[in-house]
């Protein structure tokens, strides 16, 4: 997998911490591998919306990557609940269902961005930099791919 210039937290230069929420183990592993190539760290994983809320409270990640279609509680509702409690939460919806209504609903309920599956690493990398804004900084590493 392509290696990217590491994205760090501006405030302390530490790796960006992620909460990955997806009912598919395959999808979580895939995203975790991408995060590794971005120089990030997986703070926690969750397989449904309810667990995502408790894992967010426990780990306070810098970014949440949230699937939509999940058992128990779907991603858009979980995103809304997290943002109600933590308005600063940065949630990126990552779903194969990428029609306009879904995207608008997610953004209206607090998500910051939307990435359609299958996820292209270069797309997710750019979205993460955008969502972090000034809170993220790209480390200058010689030989990095992007």
């Amino acid at each position, binding site marked *: 997998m392509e290696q990217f210039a590491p994205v760090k937290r501006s405030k302390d230069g530490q790796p960006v911490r992620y909460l990955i929420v997806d009912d598919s183990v395959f999808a979580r592993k895939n995203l975790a591998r991408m995060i590794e190539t971005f120089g990030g760290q997986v703070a926690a994983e969750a397989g449904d919306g309810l667990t995502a809320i408790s894992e967010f409270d426990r780990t306070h990640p810098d970014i949440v990557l949230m699937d939509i279609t999940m058992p128990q509680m779907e991603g858009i509702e979980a995103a809304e609940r997290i943002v109600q409690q933590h308005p600063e939460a940065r949630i990126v919806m990552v779903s*194969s269902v990428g029609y306009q209504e879904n995207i608008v609903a997610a953004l209206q309920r607090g998500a910051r961005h939307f990435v359609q599956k299958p996820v292209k690493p270069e797309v997710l990398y750019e979205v993460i930099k955008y969502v972090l804004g000034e809170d993220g900084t790209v480390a200058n590493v010689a030989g990095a791919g992007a």
Partner: protein
Amino acid sequence: MKMELIQPFINAADAVLSQGLQGTTQVSNLTMEEDAYRRKGVAGMVALSGDIEGRIILDLEPQTAVRVASHYAGAELPESDALVKETIFELANQVVGNAVSALNDQGFHFRVHPPLLLTAEEGDKTSEDVEALMICFETAMGEIFMNVALRHNKKRMSDHAVMGA
């Protein structure tokens, strides 16, 4: 079954498989299924409800499923590894999600249900209003079969017609 409903699933499968498997895919066979569905190996099923109802099955012979899952995992997986099934589930999910997104933009509204493992050797027989189409994709990893059985939800469609009138 109208081709305009099927084509988004073929396009989505082509896009998802060619991106994920990093190679070209080709539709080698396309047949109407009139008999009960017979599972070939590792099969994930995604149900749809809404304006169009039905299900999509992505089915791979066991050795093909292992090759595909190993490719995604970046390591050789044994056939017994749960990640093999998970990979097929997620691929089915991505194909359906992408197809539904395209159909939604044409005005059809759906709910996509989480994927289920198809364990029975034989499924239900298709009926007059639920035709099934079997599409075989040739990939570098082997053949990948997609079975699409959809029908218009007449009540929902007539509701839309009334609302639109």
